[in-house]
């Protein structure tokens, strides 16, 4: 098949086509593939002249609009000049930079690939000089995306892809694939994202435009008529560019600042040819013109762009809105039109808009150069009626290929053309439109339309979640007065715009106020975070923080939002805040604590002793007992007569008499004085009779003591009886003195008496003690013949302690001559000494005063025992009486208490 090159886009096309499949440019006169040269002669060439003319005008600085329209030096002129100098200087279409290249071609060279593809896909309609304004969407219907092709039957899909498909002006019934589409639309598993993604893809615009061109004409005119017939007050006016720019995402703002790239994007394929739900929400023109390449956009965002392209024709009738949109927008958007547009009428309007923007930011009609409809529209805008008037600036744009409008085209022609279009698009009445819709719309589409209308009117419950989220993400757009929610977004309608007589966009907008719901494209947060950092660059990075989190600034995740960042946490690491440890105490708690503290402190404070009675009961009792004992003992002592006889000698004393009577003057009796001086009265009374008896026998005595006070007691004892019996120290008796060492000393004394007691207790002077041999008691005549304990004829142990007795019995007893140990003990030690008497270790036992009195009675002598005997007996009797009286009194108290208890219980 032979191919020809499109004079506009330079792509090859089959020679059978009369229009470029890529840019929709006329291929009449186009050179076959391989030939050079521009396009042939067509209506557009006649209008705009050849490129040389265009370049001449640009070289002369003859900007669209002409200096004759804008006075030199006026703000408008300066502004245009400034814009032109800025944009054209950067634009590759600048005649200075590329004088040999058409501006559009140069722009295409510098444009990115995606833009080129987009231009190729959308250049067709704008180039067609025969296309009425309402027909500008004709080729868009041809650009059936893949998803539609997939929905179509294979044969139809093939036909759509083949450029040789049948003529476009043949109205055909709705194809089956479209019916299938309608059926699929009714499914619940509707996936708008995917479908829109396919729809907005412009990679396959090769569908034969002629196939659907006749079908697209009438619907186009219908929805355009909707705009025209719409009351002035209902014409949506887009928000002011400033607000829109602020509302636009930053990455979009970045593109908005590139006017050289913006112009071709406005010729993108519109979605007017598709159902509105497929085309997506109509976007404000200026946003659509700056849409990113579709490769960089998510599918759903492409819907916005497609939707923005769709009202391309509508923008022609909403020029006022567009002008207002572009006028105050500043210099960022305007150059994209000025550098390539030759329409003086448009320039007039633009100049007027600029002048207004420079002044009060209000739009004024362009005057004579402006068509009536535009004048009226501008007038309505000036009145501030609607804010959502959408005027697509692409109306005033050159063709997608960048072909300038012919200079010869006058305002009158344009006005006439527009008037004709007005007449052609005379809106039918509502019933008529519905009737037409009913006629042309297939049944399934009507059902879909009806169902979805009903759903949209009743409630928003039918709004998909993703759409609801999208609406929530664009509150700023709503507050700025821009269209906040499109009919498509709100789910109010899914009417097919392209359907003849159907629910065209304008008609729907009029009826349901769709434009009021238009929302600017806004990326969801998660999608923003996925964009490369270059796309977000300056604005976003300056913003730093957002509602959803911070941007990651470093690392491989740089540019992403919502990433859990470790840096702030690490930067916050430091000394933890100090917490006060002071106890928070209320007043009541403090009062209780003070009270408790006082109680604890009071426990340790000394309390004054209670006043004791002068005579307590116990003290009185003590006095009574003492007085009784005193009277009994003293009075008894004063009485000269004896109150009673002495007791008889007890059996334990039976062994004493034979022992004593067996003593001779050669016998030596060992007398042990181991009692305390306090008990000397008792011990003296107990031992006096026995000692006296021994002295009567003229036995020698050896006194010794294991107590330090014992020698003195021995001395006292001998002093009492020695004189009576003629005993002298050293001759009849010897004082061995103190035996140290307790049990060990006794053991030593038992084994070696002389070694244990080397010296005696005598009245020798201190210095005489040096003569050890002369001073030794063992050398005294009293101890003559005594070398061991066995040599003693008798041992008298005077002790008041049973332990002393036990010690002597244990340590010395075995060394004594058997049956010669007589113990004279205190009455208090008798019970513990008696077992040794019963065991035979002690020969006899004299216990206390009673024993001494008994022995004195045996001797028939009156000694100390006898003198103390009466008093002791009376005193003992008195004590017995006291004990019995006290016991009786205690019994009485106990009985009385029991009686009281018994009476109390009764």
């Amino acid at each position, binding site marked *: 098949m032979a191919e020809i090159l499109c004079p506009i886009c330079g792509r090859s096309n089959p020679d059978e086509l009369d229009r470029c499949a890529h840019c929709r440019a006329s291929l009449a006169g186009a050179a076959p593939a391989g030939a050079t040269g521009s396009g042939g002669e067509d209506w557009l060439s006649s209008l705009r002249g050849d490129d040389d003319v265009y370049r001449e005008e640009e070289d002369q600085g003859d900007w669209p609009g002409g200096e004759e329209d804008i006075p030199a030096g006026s703000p408008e002129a300066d502004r245009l000049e400034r814009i032109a100098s800025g944009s054209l200087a950067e634009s590759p279409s600048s005649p200075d930079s590329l004088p040999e290249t058409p501006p559009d071609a140069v722009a295409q060279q510098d444009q990115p690939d995606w833009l080129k593809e987009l231009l190729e896909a959308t250049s067709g309609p704008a180039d067609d000089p025969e296309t009425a304004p309402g027909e500008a969407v004709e080729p868009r219907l041809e650009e059936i995306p893949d998803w539609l092709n997939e929905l179509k039957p294979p044969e139809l899909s093939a036909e759509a892809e083949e450029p040789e498909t049948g003529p476009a002006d043949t109205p055909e019934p709705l194809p089956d694939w479209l019916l299938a589409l309608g059926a699929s639309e009714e499914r619940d598993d509707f996936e708008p994202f995917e479908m829109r993604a396919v729809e907005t893809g412009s990679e396959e615009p090769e569908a034969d435009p002629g196939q659907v061109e006749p079908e697209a004409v009438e619907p186009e005119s219908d929805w355009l008529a909707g705009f025209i017939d719409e009351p002035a007050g209902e014409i949506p006016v887009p928000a002011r560019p400033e607000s829109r720019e602020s509302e636009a995402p930053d990455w979009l703002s970045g593109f908005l600042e590139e006017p050289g790239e913006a112009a071709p994007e406005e010729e993108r394929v519109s979605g007017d040819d598709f159902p509105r739900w497929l085309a997506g929400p109509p976007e404000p023109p200026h946003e659509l013109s700056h849409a990113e390449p579709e490769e960089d956009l998510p599918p759903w965002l492409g819907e916005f762009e497609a939707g923005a392209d769709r009202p391309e024709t509508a923008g022609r009738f909403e020029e006022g809105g567009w002008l207002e949109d572009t006028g105050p927008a500043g210099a960022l958007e305007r150059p994209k039109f000025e550098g390539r547009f030759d329409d003086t009428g448009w320039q007039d309007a633009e100049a007027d808009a600029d002048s207004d923007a420079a002044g009060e930011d209000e739009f004024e009609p362009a005057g004579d150069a402006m068509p009536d409809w535009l004048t009226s529209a501008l007038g309505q805008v000036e009145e501030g009626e609607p804010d959502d008037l959408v005027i697509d600036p692409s109306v005033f744009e050159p063709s997608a290929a960048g072909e300038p409008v012919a200079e010869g085209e006058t305002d009158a022609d344009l006005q006439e053309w527009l008037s004709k279009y007005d007449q052609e698009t005379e809106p039918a009445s509502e019933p008529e439109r519905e009737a037409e819709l009913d006629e042309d719309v297939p049944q399934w589409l009507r059902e879909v339309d009806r169902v979805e209308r009903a759903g949209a009117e009743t409630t928003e419950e039918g709004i998909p979640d993703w759409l609801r989220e999208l609406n929530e993400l664009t509150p700023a757009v709503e507050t700025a007065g821009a269209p906040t929610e499109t009919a498509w977004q709100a789910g109010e309608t899914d009417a097919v715009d392209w359907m003849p007589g159907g629910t065209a966009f304008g008609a729907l907008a009029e009826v349901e106020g769709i434009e009021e719901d238009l929302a600017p494209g806004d990326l969801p947060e998660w999608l923003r975070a996925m964009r490369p950092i270059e796309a977000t660059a300056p604005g976003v990075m300056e913003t730093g923080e957002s509602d959803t989190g911070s941007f990651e600034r470093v690392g491989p995740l740089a540019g992403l939002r919502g990433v859990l960042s470790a840096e702030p946490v690490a930067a916050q690491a430091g000394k933890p805040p100090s917490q006060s440890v002071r106890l928070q105490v209320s007043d009541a708690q403090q009062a209780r604590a003070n009270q408790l503290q006082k109680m604890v402190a009071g426990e340790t404070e000394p309390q004054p002793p209670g006043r004791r009675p002068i005579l307590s009961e116990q003290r009185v009792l003590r006095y009574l007992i003492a007085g009784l004992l005193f009277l009994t003992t*003293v009075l008894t002592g004063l009485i000269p007569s004896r109150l009673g006889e002495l007791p008889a000698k007890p059996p334990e004393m039976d062994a004493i008499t034979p022992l004593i009577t067996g003593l001779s003057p050669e016998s030596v009796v060992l007398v042990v004085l181991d009692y305390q001086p306090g008990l000397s009265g008792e011990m003296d009374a107990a031992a006096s009779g026995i000692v006296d008896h021994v002295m009567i026998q003229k036995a020698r005595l050896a006194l010794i003591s294991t107590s*330090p006070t014992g020698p003195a007691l021995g001395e006292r004892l001998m002093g009492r009886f020695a004189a009576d019996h003629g005993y002298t120290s050293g001759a009849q008796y010897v004082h061995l003195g103190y035996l140290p060492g*307790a049990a*060990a000393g006794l053991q030593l004394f038992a084994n070696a008496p002389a070694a244990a007691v080397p010296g005696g207790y005598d009245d020798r002077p201190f210095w005489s003690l040096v003569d050890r041999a002369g001073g030794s008691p063992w050398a005294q005549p009293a101890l003559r013949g005594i070398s061991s304990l066995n040599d003693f004829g008798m041992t008298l142990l005077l002790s008041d302690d049973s332990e002393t007795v036990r010690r002597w019995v244990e340590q010395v007893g075995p060394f004594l001559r058997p049956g010669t140990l007589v113990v004279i003990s*205190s009455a208090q030690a008798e019970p513990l000494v008696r077992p040794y008497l019963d065991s035979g270790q002690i020969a006899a036992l004299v216990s206390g005063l009673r024993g001494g009195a008994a022995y004195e009675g045996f001797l028939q002598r009156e000694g100390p025992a006898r003198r*103390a005997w009466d008093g002791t007996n009376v005193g003992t009797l008195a004590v017995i009486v006291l004990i019995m009286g006290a016991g009786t009194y205690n019994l009485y108290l106990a009985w009385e208490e029991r009686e009281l208890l018994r009476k109390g219980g009764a």
Partner: protein
Amino acid sequence: MVFLTVADLVGAVVGIVLTLLVFSYLLGDNLGFRFAIHLFVGVSAGLAGAVALRTVILPHILLPLIDFSDLGAWFQAFVLLVLSVLLLAKLSPRLGLLGNLPMAYIVGVGAAVVLSGAVMGTIFPQVSAASDLIDLRTLPADTPLASLGGLVNRVIAVLGTIGTLAYFHFSARSVPNAPPVRPDWIEYLARIGQVFLAVTLGALFAGVFSAALAAWVERWNFIVDFLTTIASALL
């Protein structure tokens, strides 16, 4: 007529005054009582020191050290001196460790002597004596009544001895959820021994009372005798 020397007179007066000071305790704790007590304690300590010096230190340590005629006695006296000096180190906290040696010697020797004396002089003789009570051959055979009385007395003595020892037997079986209980027969014997212990303690108390009462009477007799002597001398 008793003639009193000045020393006897002074001694009697001092003795009477100190006796009355001690008896003043019947009216409560007073200065005279405390004075008499401290005087007794001081005199006793001084007397003990003098006695120890006169009868122990000089004849056992010092005099042998200056008498070199007997080297054995001298060496023994030197050892005793060293041990005594080391024992005095107990008075100093820093040098107290040095006193452990004489203390160990004294405690060791004393324990050994007491233990051996207790075993040989008390346990064996007392066990033997207690067992002899059961020997009926030793019963008095004078009269049947005496024999019966001796038998009863021995039974009581044996029962009292066994019962008292059983009272100090503290071994018992452990019973779940109950205090340990001794065997019944030990418990019964212990109760019998408890009776004998009570009687013994009563006898001890009576002995103490009797000893104190005898001292009380002796003191008042002393005072009465002195006053009677003074009065007879004056009259």
